[in-house]
């Protein structure tokens, strides 16, 4: 907690989806919820960028939407600058939405085809009642390297290339001068030749503006250009957390290993073995409390039926796996998140009070 209060903090955040089918209702059965996000604890500090990595269906998009305020969490709490979002008033939500901006995955569909670049960038300014529109629009276009702005400002999306469109959506996120950016796979739809320039732009912007970034992706080979820290997510839970390069070089959780080993390598002289993992991830419904990767895990043991603790493996990597702790010794097996929450409990509550007083 020495680096100050995190900008965003998630404490055991849960988002369950409950779908009661007609059949269940007639038979009076309780339905099992889909545990899309199951007790995720995360801190995002100032000028830090953390990544959430996982395959489709792992809950990363649900997590992002919950962070945007599009979904109500069904459990746990989310703090912005120390204040729980569940206690936000309408004006606080408005302020939150100004300060926390999103860059979408698909620049081809996330821009209004009937809006010029100017219209796209003016809309958020109008919504949030800011003035000096032209000046702000010019400045932000310069910042995302759409130079000279005059050349781009009156264009429609169809007159822009994929990379240029993504620059416009980055400009749209920046124009309200946010302090947190939520990035939803911002380069996955782009050609490789433009991917690198967008990644460089994002990391430069973070540095210049002191932004914090929450970056979700399924692509582990590009995250290292943006993220300091990676959280590997599997079926709603974070299974490993470590500095990005550490995860890539020395993954600890069997799922992280499988994920990294499956990335194709652009080198014909490198002999990579094909994955040994069978099958596909199921929906996170009715899975019991044990490790969610157990059915596909090559290291499966009997104890995997129990929920693994999130333990410090080697001082750098934290993993939620029974392989990495001595189950007899309570000390070695301390759950990192639980411990942190206990420590942060007092200070977190105080900070919340202070913000409330302002």
């Amino acid at each position, binding site marked *: 907690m020495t680096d100050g209060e995190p900008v965003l903090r998630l404490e055991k955040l849960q988002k369950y989806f409950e779908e009661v089918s007609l059949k269940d209702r007639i038979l009076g059965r309780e339905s099992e919820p889909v545990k899309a996000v199951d007790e995720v604890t995360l801190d995002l500090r100032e000028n830090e960028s953390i990544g959430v990595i996982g395959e489709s269906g792992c809950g990363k998009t649900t997590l992002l939407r919950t962070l945007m305020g599009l979904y109500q969490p069904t459990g746990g709490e989310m703090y912005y600058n120390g204040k729980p979002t569940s206690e936000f008033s309408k004006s606080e939500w408005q302020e939150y939405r100004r300060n926390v901006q999103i860059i979408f995955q698909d620049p081809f569909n996330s821009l209004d085809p009937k809006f010029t670049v100017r219209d796209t960038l003016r809309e958020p300014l109008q919504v949030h009642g800011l003035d000096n529109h032209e000046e702000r629009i010019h400045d932000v276009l310069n910042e995302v390297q759409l130079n000279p702005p005059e050349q781009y400002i009156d264009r429609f999306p169809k007159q822009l290339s994929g990379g240029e469109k993504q620059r416009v959506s980055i400009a749209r996120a920046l124009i309200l001068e946010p302090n947190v950016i939520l990035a939803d796979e911002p380069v996955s739809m782009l*050609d490789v030749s*433009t991917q690198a320039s967008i990644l460089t732009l994002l990391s430069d912007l973070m540095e210049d503006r002191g932004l914090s970034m929450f970056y979700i992706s399924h692509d582990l*080979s590009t995250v290292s250009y943006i993220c300091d820290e990676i959280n590997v997510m599997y079926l709603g839970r974070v299974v490993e957390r470590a500095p990005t390069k550490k995860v*890539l070089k020395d993954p600890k959780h069997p799922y992280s290993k499988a994920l990294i080993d499956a*990335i194709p390598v652009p*080198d014909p002289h490198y002999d990579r073995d*094909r994955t040994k993992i069978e*099958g*596909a991830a199921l929906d996170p419904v009715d899975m019991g409390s044990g490790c969610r990767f157990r059915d596909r895990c090559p290291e499966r043991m009997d104890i995997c039926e129990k929920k693994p603790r999130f333990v410090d493996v080697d001082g750098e990597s934290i993993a939620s796996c029974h392989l990495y702790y001595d189950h007899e010794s309570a000390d070695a097996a301390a759950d990192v998140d639980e411990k942190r929450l206990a420590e942060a409990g007092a200070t977190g509550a105080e900070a919340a009070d202070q913000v409330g007083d302002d």
Partner: protein
Amino acid sequence: MSESEPILELDDVTIQYRTSGGMLTAVSDASFTIGQGEYFGLVGESGCGKSTIAKTLIGALDDNGIIESGTIRYKGEEIQGYTEADFNEELRWKEISMIPQGSMNNLDPIEKISDQAIEIAQVHTDMTKAEALERFEELFEVVGIQKSRINDYPHQFSGGMEQRAIIALALFLNPSLIIADEPTTALDVIMQDQVFKYLDEIREEGDVSMVLITHDISLVFESCDDIAIMHSGQVAETGDIGTIYDNPRHPYSFMLQGAFPDHRYPDRDLEVIEGHPPENMGEVNRCTFVDRCPYAVEECSESAPKLEQYEESETDHRVACFRSEDAYEEHQRSMPDSDTAEVQGDD
């Protein structure tokens, strides 16, 4: 490349689309050869013409598309003039089959997969229903799905399994050539790897050739023998993967490789190729990479470079660039910490 007769040869093929703005040239003077039993990767960015070539090979070019010039020979026979009926009778499924993009809507959602297989068999062969089902069951085992599941509906499969079921369909009538158009783009990495595991196994058998069309050069480097790199309708460079990796001589080809992230070297700077591919209207008489190429000279905009054997290479390695040698040297000089230095540093 194998000495045997090539299965597919493209010779100076130009394909155009009629648009309201005139004739749009999607593929211009493209040439490459695929040997028997060979896996061939066709790589390039969106709009480079790779999917147009795929569609042309199975006679599924859009209505406004025409093969303007050039020849396409399949097993020695020219097919560029084939009609819809010719394609159906002679080629589709039993000679050339296709694995389309790995999206979830390639199978009919309201028909059992087995029924879809039977339909294909009845249209293209004399197989009986029982024979067809037996053959299809065998193939499900080849691609790692329980044979009892041939009677499932597509929605009962996960994305990776559905793509494997499509591979089973593609292999169904024993084709000699499979066109795989971004077969795993919609899949997660682990499933992608599962799919390629089966494509590797099919390759071991050695009877089928494949054209793997993808934007992901790593997949080609891992799974193919030869490669052609395309930029905006033109084949920039073609050869075996070892040569193209070790000695690329077209600026687009070495810059594209430099733009590819490799998770083994997370600190490596990625190369950026400025600009975007042009839209080529009418006849293309220049290098289509000229506007993006840092090594371009006047000559490059005056005529289209021919795809010619690179003399230093002992293998079949063809490059379409006026400045290949100079450009390569300049590029090497501009990269002080080359790959090799990093590999050593990493160890």
